[in-house]
C-alpha cells in the first residue's frame, strides 16, 4: 500500500516542475516534500538575478519566483508539504522524514529526488589558517540580506570567478559592502571573460592564478595572505572571506544510502530517463551535476516528471531490476557525464536527449562519442572548464554494450 504515486523530494525548480508535470499527465497522488517553509530552493535568496524566462516566459526575482512555483503546484493539485525534511531513502520507494509532528515513513510507487546543489564551504576546501567568524558562501551571504537584512562583513575578499561570483559582487555592492579583491585560483576566469570587466569596472582588483594561502583572525577575519600569479605574497586586510561557487550536489541522502554517488558528478548516476540504479528512484536538477540555471533545472524536472508518468502508465512496478545497466565511461580531464548510465531495454522517449559534460580544466583536444568501439561523433577544439557541453545521445546508445566518451589531448 503506497501513500502516494510519486513523492518528490525538494521544492526547487526541478522538483516543482516534475510534480506539476506528473499531475498534468494524470498521476493521481503527487506529494512534494520541502524542508524549508517556502518553495523555490536556491532561487529564494537570489534577489538580484532574474528567473523564469525559460520556464514561465516571464521575469521573476528571488522569492517571487518561489511564489510562482507555489501557485503552479497548487493549481496542478500537487500535495505540497513544507517543513518536511527527508532524512533517509530506503529501498522500495520508502522515505523516512522529519515532520513538525515527529518522524514519519512514507511509501510511494516512485521517488524523485531533486535536492539541488550548494557551494563548497571553507572546511571542504581545506583552506589554511585560523577559523574566525566571517568566512561564508554566497548562499549564506544572500540569505543574510534576503531573509534577515543582515550583513556578515563590510570588506570581504571574494574567492571564485563563476557567474555566482559576479552575483556575489553585486550583492556586496548593493548592500553596503566593498570587496577588497576578487581572486580565481585557475589561470582563467570561469565566467565568460567579458563579464569579468564588471568587478574591475567597480574598482575591485581581480587576480587570476591567485591562491588564498592563509586566513588570519582570532575572532573575526583580520587579513588574508594571497599568492599571486607571479609568486609574490600579498597580505590584504579584510573583515571577511566570501567563498563563491564550486557547487556540489546536495547528495547527503544518496551518500548514506546503498546507492551512493557517481564519483565524477558527486550526484546520483541516472539513465536517460532520470532513473537511478534503484528502479523506484529518479533524480533531476542540480543534484545531478553542479550547476545549471533555474530554468535548465526546471525543464529537466519537467522532462523527468513526464518520464516517470510514462513509466507508471506502463505499470512496471517490478522486473526492472533485471535490466542491464551500462555505465558511460569517459577519459579525463572530462570530469562528469550526465546521464552516466544506459539502461538497456528502456522503451519510451528519454528525458535526457543529450549527454551533459564538464571538463575539470581547460584542455585542447578531440572529444568523441564511441559506441561499441565505433566513433559516432567527434569534435576538436579548446574545451573550457565548468562550461556546459551537450552531446546528443544517439538512439543506438540504448542498445550498445559499451558507451565511451573519449578525449585525446593535443599539445
Amino acid at each position: 500500500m503506497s501513500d502516494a504515486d510519486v513523492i518528490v523530494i525538494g521544492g526547487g525548480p526541478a522538483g516543482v516542475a516534475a510534480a506539476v508535470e506528473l499531475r498534468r499527465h494524470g498521476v493521481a497522488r503527487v506529494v512534494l516534500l520541502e524542508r524549508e517553509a517556502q518553495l523555490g530552493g536556491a532561487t529564494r535568496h537570489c534577489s538580484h538575478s532574474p528567473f523564469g524566462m525559460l520556464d514561465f516566459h516571464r521575469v521573476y526575482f528571488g522569492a517571487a519566483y518561489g511564489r510562482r512555483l507555489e501557485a503552479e503546484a497548487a493549481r496542478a493539485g500537487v500535495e505540497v508539504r513544507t517543513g518536511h525534511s527527508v532524512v533517509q531513502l530506503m529501498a522500495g520507494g520508502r522515505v523516512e522524514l522529519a515532520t513538525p509532528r515527529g518522524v514519519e515513513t512514507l511509501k510511494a510507487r516512485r521517488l524523485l529526488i531533486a535536492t539541488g546543489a550548494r557551494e563548497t564551504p571553507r572546511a571542504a576546501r581545506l583552506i589554511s589558517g585560523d577559523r574566525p567568524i566571517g568566512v561564508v558562501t554566497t548562499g549564506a551571504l544572500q540569505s543574510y540580506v534576503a531573509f534577515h537584512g543582515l550583513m556578515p562583513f563590510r570588506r570581504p575578499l571574494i574567492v571564485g570567478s563563476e557567474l555566482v561570483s559576479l552575483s556575489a559582487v553585486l550583492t556586496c555592492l548593493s548592500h553596503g559592502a566593498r570587496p577588497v579583491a576578487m581572486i580565481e585560483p585557475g589561470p582563467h576566469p570561469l565566467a565568460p571573460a567579458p563579464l569579468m570587466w564588471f568587478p574591475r569596472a567597480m574598482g575591485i582588483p581581480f587576480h587570476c592564478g591567485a591562491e588564498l594561502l592563509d586566513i588570519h583572525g582570532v575572532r573575526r577575519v583580520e587579513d588574508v595572505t594571497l599568492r599571486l600569479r607571479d609568486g609574490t605574497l600579498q597580505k590584504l586586510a579584510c573583515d571577511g572571506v566570501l567563498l563563491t561557487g564550486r557547487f556540489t550536489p546536495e547528495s547527503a541522502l544518496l551518500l548514506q544510502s546503498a546507492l551512493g554517488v557517481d564519483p565524477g558528478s558527486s550526484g546520483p548516476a541516472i539513465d536517460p530517463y532520470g532513473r537511478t540504479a534503484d528502479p523506484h528512484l529518479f533524480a533531476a536538477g542540480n543534484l545531478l551535476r553542479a550547476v545549471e540555471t533555474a530554468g535548465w533545472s526546471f525543464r529537466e524536472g519537467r522532462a523527468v516528471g513526464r518520464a516517470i508518468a510514462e513509466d507508471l502508465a506502463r505499470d512496471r512496478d517490478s522486473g526492472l531490476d533485471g535490466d542491464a545497466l551500462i555505465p558511460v565511461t569517459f577519459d579525463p580531464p572530462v570530469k562528469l557525464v550526465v546521464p552516466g548510465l544506459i539502461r538497456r531495454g528502456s522503451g519510451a522517449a528519454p528525458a535526457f536527449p543529450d549527454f551533459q559534460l564538464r571538463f575539470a580544466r581547460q584542455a585542447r583536444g578531440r572529444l568523441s562519442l564511441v559506441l561499441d568501439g565505433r566513433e559516432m561523433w567527434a569534435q576538436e577544439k579548446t574545451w573550457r572548464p565548468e562550461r556546459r557541453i551537450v552531446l546528443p545521445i544517439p538512439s543506438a546508445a540504448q542498445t550498445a554494450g559499451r558507451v565511451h566518451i573519449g578525449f585525446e589531448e593535443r599539445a
Partner: protein
Amino acid sequence: MRPEPPAFDESFDIAVIGAGVVGCAVVRRLALAGAKVVLIEKGSDILSGASKANSAILHTGFDAPPGSLELDLIKAGREEYLTLGPGLGLDLVKTGALVCAWNDLEAEKLDAIAAQGRENGVSNLALLSGATARATMPGLSDRLVAAIEVADEHIIDPWTAPLTYLTQGVALGAHFLRNAELIEGRFDGEWHLATTAGTVSARAVVNTAGLYGDIVDARLGFSPEFEIRPRKGQFVVLDKAAYAHVPRIVLPVPTEITKGVVVCPTAFGNVLIGPTAEEQEDRVRATVETATLEGLLARGAQIVPALAGMPVTAVYAGLRPASEAKAYRIFCRPEKRAVTLGGIRSTGLSAALGLAQHALKLIEGFGLSLSQASDAPELRLPNLTETCPRDWQAPDHGEIVCHCEMVTRREIEAALISPVPPGDFGGLRRRTRAGMGRCQGFYCNARLAEMTRGKLREPLAIGNERS
C-alpha cells in the same frame, strides 16, 4: 581610562581558574562537597581553549605510563563517568579500539603494548591477527598485519559532558565569571584575584588554566614549576557517510614522539582523522594547513580505503597544554591554599572527573570548613549524540534550523536561555551542533545570525545591511 571593574562583594570558598573540561569537573566536585565556588574564565565561554578540540575518546588508560598519577586519574575519571553518565543523559558508545600494526616492525611492539595494558589493569585486551582484526572491522586495509583489541574504549560527546559538570555546579550555587582574565592574585590569608571582570576573593584557588597554566601560576605569584609548550593537533571530520566504514577506534602503534593519527567514529555520526602533533610557541592560534589536512585524508584512506574521496565536513585544530615533562604537572601549596592541575595533555577528557576528585582531596588537606555536602542535582542536557533520540524526532520542535545536523529551533532557543548559555558562536555550536554539518552554514548561518542577535560576544552579523 576605563574605571576599575567593581569588586565582587561576596567572598568564595574556592576560585577555579580556567573553564576547560578539567575546570568544569573541578567546579562540580567542589560544589558537591559543599564549597561556594567561582569559575573564572578568560574566554567568553567554557571550552574556549584546549578542551574545544579533542578526539572525544574515553580512554581506558591501557597505554598510560604504568604507575603514574595520570593512569590513576584516567581510571578514576573513567569509572566515575561510566557510573554517572547514564543518569545525566551522557551517552557513551562502546566501540572498542584496535591498535593496528601495519608492518612487522610495528607488530613486534604489540606484545609490549599489551603487557603494559595488562599492567595498567586493563584486562579486556586481545592480540589479534590481521585477518581476525579485520573480521571485527571489514573496512580496514588488507595491509593490516596484526592488532591489539582494546574492547572497553568508548567514544563520548566531548562538549555536553563538561557542560553538564558545570551546569550541576551552577545548580549547586557555583558562579561562572566569563571574559575574566586573571591579572594578578594576592594571598594574605585569603586570595584576592584581580581579573578583567572585577576582583574576586576566595579562600583557596585551583589553577585549571590549561594552555595558560604556567602563566596563571606566575600571576598567582608562584615561582615557575613547569612550562606549557603548546602542541597543535589538526583534525579532519568526514561526512556521515563515512561512519558505516569506521565502527571502531583505529589507533596506530605509538612512537616515542607521538601517539599518532587516529581514525575513529564520533558520537555525532561522523568520522574523525587526526590529530597531528606540532610543537609551537603560540598559545592562541591553532591554524589548519592545507597540506597537513590533505596528508590526514591520505592517511585515513590508507587505513580505511573506503574513506578515499569521502566528503570533508569540517576541519579543526586544537592546542594541547603539553609541558616540558610527559607527566601531569600537579602541584599543591597548602601554605597558600593553592592547587595547580597543569600539563594535562591529551587525556583531560578521560581524566577530568578523576582530576576533580584528586583536587578535592588536596583541598581537604587545607582544613577549610565547607558547608554540608549536597547530592548531585538531577539534570539532563539535550542529547546531541546519534545513538540516543534527538529533539527533531519528537513532536513540536518548532522547525529544523540546521538541516545537516538536524538541529531544531527549540534546541537553539533552549540553549540560548540555559543556565550556562553560550557566550560565542563556537559555544552555540558545541551546545547544539548547529552549523557543524556538511554545508557549514550555507543554509543556516544567516538564520543563526538572526536568532543570536545581541546574545553573543562576537556577533555573526555586523549589523543592518545598509547601516
